[in-house]
């Protein structure tokens, strides 16, 4: 029967395919984030995340201090292994041009207890964690292929990593970039003297022994943390250990958004189902006579329902197959919309779960949209339909009521989604227009990393930047240039404990003044147009031979110097234990700049030290350009190579891009939400149009009679649109109530507006009303153009 009505079949399959396609696209993301196992990792339900945190800041994990990690390894009994890693830029040189990779220094036994073996060579040996062990590296599959051309004899070769001759001991399998996007791995080889307690910079993880529970591990780690705090109260008082399943930590940022998207897209699927149910009801009405004859010939109602349901299940299967095709495009588009490198374990693949979901959704949907129309069509009024010339039927008043109710439901569901999209759009716009305290326009930034082996102290590092910055500023078309250890809104800002002149050193780390600290060169404030409110900027005279200087922002000035001029006062970062204090004199006060990602709620005062005195090895250079900043990428690269031909540049972005990256998840979420909402609006409008067009077709004769009795075009228009407007009105009312409650789940993802933002709740229904009115107007217009003579003949 579906072949005999190709128009109906095509529209029904298309509506289903749109819904199933969007749902499957989202499910592919949900599957990648929440369901798919981590590639290659064995016994992953026993892998846990470990981090230290302070009881005063329970929502912020500090990371793991190296000495504490060593204590854990010694004292614990519930873990098969405890590991730590630190991501690091690794510059592989020796070729024509240096290559920069993101790598990780990782516990030598980590890959063993994670259950991952190299495809070539061997694992790290435990003793290779020792500080004096020979430098060795495992390389990633892509590095092996791209940098070494897949050479099977790569094991045993020596390469220069960050200026240090290092022996390659093995090649890791494809799809292994633990912990996130690493391509090279070296053992931790950390010195406890350089990394004392109180420096929480490692990412911790462990594998529970078989049979050990997370609760047992928590209890044990709590006891160990308490012992460390007793022995080292100055750094570890109030310091606790968080133990939780590895995936739980890995998905903490994306879980809510992914589930919200899944919920939103299921709304779209429900609307698609309502549309198909409406089509089936209308089609069932036109088949009344056929069904009547079947019943008269001896078919039972069950036979008829089975026959009709078989057709709807077939529709569901066709919808699933076409939906999968849409999902292939959808996933492709979704991946293109992600502007950053995502962790290696998030793989958008069409595995058995995705196929099962798509086919299952098609099946469940076919029952959802098919059952009532089948039951409705299976009991026609036999005498009526079998009369000679009997009408094909309209499905009766009940059928009409159900069709209207479905349209009301579609409008209500679409409104909830559209209000959600409106809220996320407003939130997105608020974020986009956040005043970050700097001007990101017409600026290009790039990262420069100086290997510690070649740039061992801050004097050498300082000299490099003293040479580089004037050269970058001298590029034709560049207005000014400067460098910073952290870019505004980029989120890679560190916090440090600080001591003000005349204050006693805090006895415990948790009581210290915390501030965002960064190193900048002269020219950075000018280039980023950060307002200097008092005092002076750094100059080239503030070099390693000059007295140390610092700038603070207005937040620091307000908090720490409420009644005095901060200029001339001194401060220092809380140094490693035993290190001589290095005081810096405050020479200026700047406007507050947001260095955290815009979605972060943290607000710390900022302290700037001069790079020429501080010597950070990894810096972002920023240049303000007179024309499109992207055009300056090659000039910048060549300028850096001219200063040192072993130094590559990476993360080349305009500052506008950095800003967008700072809330890309929200933007991504908003984009998908909006796509789904527009899809919902489209489907609901089509549904409304379908019902109104069907109603006009059913009422053709009535309209003809009314016109013959004196109704004018305006009367017909009013008659048809009044019915539609009533349905839209009821749908909007129900949708608004639903949206009022349902949008609460969005509250955590919104910035600067409430989940009941009046503007979104006012404008969105108006848009939906206008679109709905158009959907009603089109059938009404054709009704107005009816020829009454033809209409009166219509049967």
């Amino acid at each position, binding site marked *: 029967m579906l072949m005999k009505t190709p128009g109906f079949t095509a529209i029904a399959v298309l509506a289903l395919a749109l819904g199933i396609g969007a749902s499957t696209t989202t499910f592919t993301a949900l599957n990648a984030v929440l369901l798919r196992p981590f590639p290659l990792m064995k016994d992953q339900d026993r892998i846990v995340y470990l981090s230290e945190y302070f009881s005063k800041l329970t929502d912020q994990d500090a990371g793991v201090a190296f000495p504490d990690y060593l204590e854990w390894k010694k004292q614990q009994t519930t873990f098969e292994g405890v590991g730590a890693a630190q991501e690091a830029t690794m510059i592989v040189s020796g070729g024509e041009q240096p290559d920069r990779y993101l790598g990780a220094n990782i516990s030598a036994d980590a890959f063993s207890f994670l259950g991952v073996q190299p495809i070539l060579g061997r694992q790290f040996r435990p003793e290779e964690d020792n500080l004096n062990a020979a430098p060795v590296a495992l390389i990633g599959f892509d590095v092996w292929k791209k940098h070494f051309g897949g050479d099977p004899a790569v094991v045993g070769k020596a390469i220069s990593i960050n200026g240090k001759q290092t022996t390659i001991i093995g090649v890791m399998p494809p799809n292994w970039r633990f912990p996130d996007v690493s391509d090279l791995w070296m053992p931790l080889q950390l010195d406890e003297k350089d990394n004392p307690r109180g420096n929480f910079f490692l990412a911790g993880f462990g594998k529970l022994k078989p049979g050990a529970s997370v609760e047992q591990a928590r209890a044990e780690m709590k006891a160990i943390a308490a012992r460390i705090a007793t022995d080292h109260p100055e750094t570890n008082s109030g310091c606790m250990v968080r133990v939780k399943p590895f995936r739980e930590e890995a998905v903490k940022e994306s879980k809510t958004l992914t589930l919200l998207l899944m919920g939103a897209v299921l709304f779209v699927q429900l609307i698609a189902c309502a549309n198909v149910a409406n089509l089936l009801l209308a089609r069932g009405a036109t088949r009344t006579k056929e069904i009547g004859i079947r019943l008269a010939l001896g078919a039972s109602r069950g036979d008829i329902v089975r026959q009709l349901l078989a057709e709807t299940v077939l529709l569901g299967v066709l919808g699933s197959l076409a939906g999968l095709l849409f999902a292939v495009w959808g996933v492709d588009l979704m991946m293109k919309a992600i502007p950053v490198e995502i962790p290696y374990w998030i793989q958008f693949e069409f595995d058995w779960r995705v196929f099962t979901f798509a086919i299952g959704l098609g099946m469940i949907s076919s029952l959802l949209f098919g059952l009532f129309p089948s039951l409705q069509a299976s009991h026609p009024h036999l005498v009526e339909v079998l009369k000679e010339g009997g009408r094909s039927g309209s499905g009766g008043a009940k059928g009409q009521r159900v069709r209207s109710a479905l349209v009301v439901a579609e409008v209500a569901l679409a409104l909830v989604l559209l209000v959600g999209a409106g809220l996320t759009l407003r939130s997105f716009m608020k974020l986009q227009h956040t005043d970050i305290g700097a001007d990101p326009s017409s600026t290009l930034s790039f990262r420069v990393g100086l290997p510690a082996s070649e740039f061992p102290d801050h004097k050498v590092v300082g000299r490099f930047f003293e040479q580089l910055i004037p050269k970058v500023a001298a590029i034709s078309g560049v207005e000014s240039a400067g460098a910073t250890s952290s870019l505004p809104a980029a989120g890679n800002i560190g916090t440090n404990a600080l001591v003000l002149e005349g204050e006693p050193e805090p006895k415990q780390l948790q009581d210290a003044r915390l501030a965002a600290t960064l190193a900048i060169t002269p020219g950075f404030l000018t280039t980023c147009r950060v307002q200097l409110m008092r005092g002076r900027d750094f100059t080239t005279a503030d070099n390693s031979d000059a007295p140390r200087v610092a700038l603070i922002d207005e937040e620091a000035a307000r908090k720490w110097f409420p009644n005095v001029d901060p200029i001339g006062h001194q401060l220092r970062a809380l140094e490693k234990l035993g290190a001589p204090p290095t005081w810096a004199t405050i020479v200026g006060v700047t406007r507050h700049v947001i260095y955290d990602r815009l979605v972060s709620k943290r607000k710390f005062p900022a302290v700037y030290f001069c790079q020429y005195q501080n010597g950070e090895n990894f810096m972002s250079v920023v240049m303000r350009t007179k024309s499109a900043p992207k055009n300056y990428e090659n000039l910048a690269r060549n300028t850096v190579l001219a200063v040192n031909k072993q130094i590559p540049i990476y993360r080349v972005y305009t500052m506008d891009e950095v800003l967008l990256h700072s809330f890309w998840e929200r933007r991504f979420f908003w984009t998908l939400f909006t796509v789904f909402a527009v899809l919902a609006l489209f489907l609901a409008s089509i549904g409304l149009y379908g019902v109104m067009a069907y109603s006009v077709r059913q009422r053709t004769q009535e309209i003809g009679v009314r016109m013959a009795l004196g109704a004018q075009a305006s009367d017909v228009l009013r008659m048809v649109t009044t019915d539609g407007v009533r349905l839209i009105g009821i749908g909007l009312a129900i949708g608004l109530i639903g949206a009022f409650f349902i949008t609460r789940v969005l509250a955590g993802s919104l910035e600067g507006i409430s989940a009941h933002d009046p503007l979104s709740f006012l404008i969105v229904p108006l848009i939906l009303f206008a679109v709905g009115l158009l959907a009603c107007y089109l059938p009404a217009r054709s009704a107005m153009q009816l020829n009454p*003579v033809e209409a009166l003949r219509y049967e």
Partner: protein
Amino acid sequence: MIKLKNLERVYPLARGKFFYVLRDISLEINEGEFVSVMGPSGAGKSSLLHIIGMHDHGWNGEYFLGQTAVHHLKPKERATLRNEQIGFVFQSYHLLDDLTVYENLDIPLSYRRFSKAERAGIVADTLDRFNIVGKKDLYPRQLSGGQQQLVGVARAIIANPKLLLADEPTGNLHSSQGEEIMELFRKLNDEGMTIIQVTHSEKNAGYGNRIIQLRDGWVV
């Protein structure tokens, strides 16, 4: 009252051909006449009635209703003129199924912008006049064919038209019900209403005072 001159109704066919439904119709109908249009199926009777009733605008020629040259009027002006002067009775009644007898009678008045109070008064008078007060809350399906056509006639004349057009008004009725309707037409005609009916029945044509015969679109 009605003057048609060289009126033609043509439907285009495939390959540039035409089908003439009415050809060169010229006739006059005076006020107060009761005219029956007769002829075999496909002769163009109903088409002529719909043109006179201004439901169909796709014709050529001249059509005067009283002093008004209908052929010069725009569709909207024709609709206004029709609402003022013409009532229409259909063979299959065309009562609206979801409306009661009362509501069916109210429709033509609502389209002529009568006030609600005026409409209530006129509907009440008409129910009384046609002796169907007791049926005012019934739906069409609850009435016999004769009763439905009675309501159809009542609905056609409720706005007090000067001209009543009836397309085979007794075609779906048995003979006694048909006679009742024809008697009603005779009474309306006696009261001064001009009536044009299409009929196949010689007997029904006998109620009128003139017969126009159509064959293949021509007046014969």
